[in-house]
């Protein structure tokens, strides 16, 4: 046979999407005897898109998972490498929760608390001063009397961006002094985190965050909802602005800290790599990703049916991103 044959779908990308994509891949391989089980790699959304956009051919991946939409310059880069036909598939939502060890105190957080706990500088009486807070109850008496130790995703994670945009910025912008700044100064100010060791950036995955909580009782960590869900015995979740994160509150948008999840299909490989389109449609089917499905059990927040129908239609039509 020709040397370049490949009949296994090759997927890579976001570590958030990895568990979902893996489950789909395995079920897909088990359900369709004519297709081999796709191979799902991780490496982060950026890493996946990098591989995805390296070109077309059997030694490039067919699908990139991403926990954020592809950026315009990435798409441009793709095109310049010959990856001209990209199909975008949005398949659900991911919630981001704050959790502490189940034997530690319970937190009822506001975005403002989180900002004040982690910022390098905080506004105080109209001036910016070095973050003076060392215990949560200094920020707000309603919070537990515990050392501040915030374990957040490293800046290489998409989750960090969501954390900043949906929690830190709202908290930060609640100060008048901040509102007065110009937009870029404001961004820089809000994103600056303290470097005295009270904020730990985790570059690895949530297991590492969990390990840090294991090692330090008073730590408060940022997790994906699905991760929290499977470790409920060890973790207790914090409420945000009074809302407890759950499938329902996130799907309804009541709980603010969430984001959509995507995968990108290389249309030029459809028909060449067997089962590529079938996999994408299988992923989107109600049976796999809807209510009561294995993906939901794994912690994915399903899309509303109408949204799902639209996506399926566009996949069938192989709608190319422009």
């Amino acid at each position, binding site marked *: 046979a020709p040397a*370049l044959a*490949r009949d*296994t779908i*090759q*997927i*890579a990308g976001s*570590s958030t999407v*990895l*568990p979902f*994509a*893996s*489950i789909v*891949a*395995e*079920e897909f*391989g*088990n*359900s*369709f*005897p*004519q297709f*081999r*089980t796709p*191979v*799902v*790699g*991780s*490496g982060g959304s950026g890493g996946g898109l990098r*591989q995805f956009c*390296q*070109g077309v*051919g*059997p*030694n*490039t*991946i067919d699908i990139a998972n991403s926990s954020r939409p592809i950026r315009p310059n990435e798409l441009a880069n793709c095109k310049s490498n010959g990856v001209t036909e990209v199909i975008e598939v949005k398949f659900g939502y991911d919630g981001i929760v704050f959790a502490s060890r*189940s034997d530690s105190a319970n937190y009822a957080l506001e975005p403002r608390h989180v900002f004040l706990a982690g910022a390098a500088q905080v506004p105080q009486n109209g001036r910016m001063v070095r973050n003076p807070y060392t215990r949560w109850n200094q920020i707000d008496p309603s919070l537990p009397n515990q050392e501040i130790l915030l374990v957040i995703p490293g800046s290489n994670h998409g989750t960090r961006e969501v954390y900043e945009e949906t929690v830190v910025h709202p908290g930060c912008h609640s100060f008048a002094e901040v509102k007065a700044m110009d937009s870029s100064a404001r961004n820089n100010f809000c994103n600056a985190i303290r470097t005295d060791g009270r904020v730990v950036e985790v570059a*690895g*995955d*949530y*297991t590492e965050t*969990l390990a840090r909580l294991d090692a330090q009782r008073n730590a408060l960590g940022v997790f994906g909802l*699905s*991760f929290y*869900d*499977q*470790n*409920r*015995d*060890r973790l207790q979740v914090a409420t945000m602005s009074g809302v407890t994160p759950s499938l329902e509150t996130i799907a309804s948008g009541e709980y603010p800290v969430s984001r959509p999840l995507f995968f990108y299909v290389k249309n030029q490989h459809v028909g060449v790599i067997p089962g590529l389109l079938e996999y994408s449609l299988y992923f989107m089917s109600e049976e796999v990703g809807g209510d009561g499905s*294995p993906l939901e059990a*794994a*912690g994915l927040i399903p899309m509303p049916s109408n949204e799902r129908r639209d996506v399926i239609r566009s996949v069938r039509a192989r709608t190319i991103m422009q």
Partner: protein
Amino acid sequence: MTPSDSEQTKTQQPDLMDLAQKRDLMQQRVAASLKRRHASEKRFRLYGMAAVTVALSFVAILFITILSKGLPAFWQATLTLDVYFDPEIIEIDEKPVRQPGESDGAFQQRMLAWQTDLGFVNFNRIILNSLAEVLPEAPRYQRDAMRLVTSGERFGLRQLVEDNPAIVGQTLRLKLLADANVDVWLKGNIDRSLPDSQQQLSARTRAWADELAERGIIRNQFSTALFMNADSRSSLASAGLAGAFMGSLMMMLIVMFLAVPVGVASAIYLEEFAPKNRLTDLIEVNINNLAAVPSIVFGLLGASVFILWFKLPLSAPIVGGLVLSLMTLPTVIIATRSTLKAIPPSIRQAALGIGASKVQSVFHHVLPLAIPGILTGSILGVAQALGEAAPLLLIGMSSFVASVPGSPFDQSTALPVQIYLWQGNELRNFFEARTSAAIIVLLALMISLNALAIWLRRHFETRW
């Protein structure tokens, strides 16, 4: 005797006279220093012993930690059930048999159709029915009941039918793996006193699990799944190491057959043949430097050279093996060179003096003497490659692969990568132990490699 000689003798004469006194004095001084020196000797020896003890206790602590965590994972909660392959549920045609004169493609087509039919059979119903035999309540609370058995078992039953359609209509006593959470619950890896909201299983499933365990229907049995299966995400309890093991094995073979000979060959060239000049200096610096280059950089190299340039497949042991070979190469070269350096030149001279050529003196005399050292170096290198994960992440080997690779060109993971993947799995209660189990397998593999090497080393050493 020349005049200068006798003069010298004269000047030494007085010196000789006090020699006896001087010696006495010196012996006293020696005696005076003895206590201090013996103390320092003892101390030195003690430091040495302490160092060995410290190093050994590090090994011990590591192993005890890992073994105590991982050993329980070799046994898994397993249900023993009578499964009735109900023909009412399994409504399929005869398994196609190849007709004479039928083309490859056509037969394949018919087979596929049959397999697809089989794929539509609801094997979960069959499992539920056999659960109902032991738990009459099961059909009423289907969801809770199905949480007892890991979801992948339905494909196991399908495979049984596919392999032997004759079992349809029969009842077989089968071992079905319990769900990962059931295993966690029964092993007590989750706090049993936690409220419902913090448990993974419903109260009913938990009660059933306890009941079945009491009745001996669920028992802890040695987990063949761990060794026979590839990784799994949808049926966590059946996740196994077979795929990663094969991947690692293939890469090891590639490293052994590439890095070791090439490394030894270049060491021989550099040490025995190469003229000592700027160029060889450069090569030497370059090799030392390669040994220092972070392994992750080799990953970058592999991704851009082997995958983009040579168009080798992603996630394949062949690429992993090549990358690890390049990584191991400097280690092998350096170890071999230092061994070669230590072989006394008189051996080479002896051979050359009899009329052996340089090549002959090297291959007949130097190399055989160097074998123990080369083995030590190579094994350190291969063992290091066996445990390396970082560069594999960049060539797509950190993927989820649900099948066992059949060739080095198939997609695969490796043991350290599997460990990395499992340690990152969400279901910590189950995978903490399983990760340690995987580490135990990796270590066992590595130790047997080392043992082999030690045996070889002894074998060659005892000859002289």
